[in-house]
């Protein structure tokens, strides 16, 4: 996998690649995004699109635990492409700024990116340029906010804290 990763990274002109716990990630720039996927599909037989999604790297989080060490504030966009013979899978990765995140769509390379990009758009506020129908896929029209951003709180938690955080009611005969 390491050798394949190096070969692929060189072919697409990637800025680097990592193999971590069996997951091959190839880092590319925003401009290389579509070209890298095209090279993968045409020259490396990575014809299968697994998914497109993003990670919100943030130091201030509204829910969950913040990272232990400070991270660079950004969206990391991932596209997993693979073959259907050897079981190879490449995670293309690129960084997007949080303000006005925008990148070219993969739908021309993989038609299946359509729904995945719609999901990433409504959950993270990422614009996919050239997407045929970048409307909401899960959320109702007019929904405000971007739920998978780390700054988006869980309303239910704010109205009523998670019961696990507070003491449960006492046992019978427990009261003073």
């Amino acid at each position, binding site marked *: 996998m390491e050798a394949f990763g190096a070969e692929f990274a060189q072919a697409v002109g990637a800025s680097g690649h990592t193999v971590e*716990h069996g997951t091959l990630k190839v880092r590319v720039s925003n401009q290389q995004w579509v070209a890298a996927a095209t090279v993968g599909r045409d020259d490396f037989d990575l014809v*299968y699109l697994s998914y497109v999604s993003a990670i919100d790297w943030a130091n201030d989080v509204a*829910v969950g*635990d913040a990272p232990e060490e400070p991270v660079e504030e950004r969206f990391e966009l991932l596209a997993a492409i693979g073959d259907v013979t050897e079981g190879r899978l490449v995670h293309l990765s690129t960084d997007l700024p949080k303000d006005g995140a925008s990148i070219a769509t993969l739908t021309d390379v993989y038609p299946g990116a359509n729904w995945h990009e719609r999901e990433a758009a409504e959950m993270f506020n990422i614009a996919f340029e050239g997407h045929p129908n970048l409307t909401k896929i899960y959320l109702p029209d007019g929904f405000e906010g971007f739920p998978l951003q780390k700054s988006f709180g869980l309303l239910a938690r704010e109205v009523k804290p998670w019961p696990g955080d507070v003491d449960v009611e006492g046992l019978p005969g427990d009261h003073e």
Partner: protein
Amino acid sequence: MTDQDFMHHLGDVSVSIELETEDMTLNIGPQHPSTHGVLRLVAKVDGEIITDVEPVLGYMHRGYEKISEVRTYPQVTALVNRIDWVSGYANEIPFIVAAEKLMGVEAPERAQYIRVILTEMARLASHLAFMGSFPLELGATTPLMYAFRDRERILDLIESVTGGRFHPNFNRIGGVKSNAGAGKTQKKASQDLPAGFFTETLAAMDVVDASCDEMETLVGGNEIFLIRSKGVGVLPADIAVSYGVSGPILRASGVEFDLRKTEDYLPYDQFDFDIPTGENGDSYDRWYVRLQEIRQSARIIRQAIEGIPSGPLRAKVPLIIKVPKGEAYVRAENPKGEMGYYLVSEGGQGPYRLKIRSSSFSNLSILPWILEGVLLPDLLAVMGSLDFVLGDVDR
């Protein structure tokens, strides 16, 4: 009128094909028996021919990716059961394996074998549900009774081990849960699976095999079924992969690809099994591939029972699970296709980010392509043959 007379008569008739009719928008669902949940289709129809379909999702969206960020790892295990509820157990495996990879622990071999047995049982449960529901959508009610009768045996076996029929929540990081009620005094290896489990499973596998033979003649030999499924909803392999379609649907299109052979999430390399494929990629092939997969699953379960080693059920892990910083994507061959989790841990008690790649989501995204030009009555045949679950689509 004989056929010959009719054909002769037909020659005299001239039909104006210039007749223009207005396209009609037909709303199907969100509550419709064929949608396996709540899915709405907005279809444009020209007479009886579908010209365009826009699936409307989100009725089952429960925000699992967000909720996972505020839950601990054991709590997330309970959540992921509910993604594809027809094969709840299989959903746990890639998530647990991803967390184990980051922690650097490996489940003991006996636990791995139990995982294989239960995963294949989940596949049987899913495929048997399909064996019942697909003919039902074409108007045949009898196979439903047969398939669900046998599925119940599988669910009973799953329940006898895990305590749950649909949502087992049986995996623990580092292994599987030891049998409920087996306290400190009962730590012998023979106490981990219920008494008689292997005998009953082997008997159930014989029933499942007999059921396959029965289905093959009862359904596969039915002329109406053949006419309604053969050549309907043909999906070429190159289109399928570009949409991320996986699992039995992809194999029905002739692609011999099975993650059980290429990934190492469970010790499938120790078992002999074949990958059934189809030739035409039509609804019939999708039915037939799943039928063959049932036989292969039964084959794997028999081998696993024969070769199951004794030993502990769980590796040593801390009482409070904290997963070290790191990222991993683990995918598995679930009954409906590739199911994967991209797990990002920042060292806490719960995931920092959990991307859930579900099979039905990508499998369903083929709908607008595959339904274009299909006759409206064939809509049910095509949708039924795709075998999706809305919980798996919406997550």
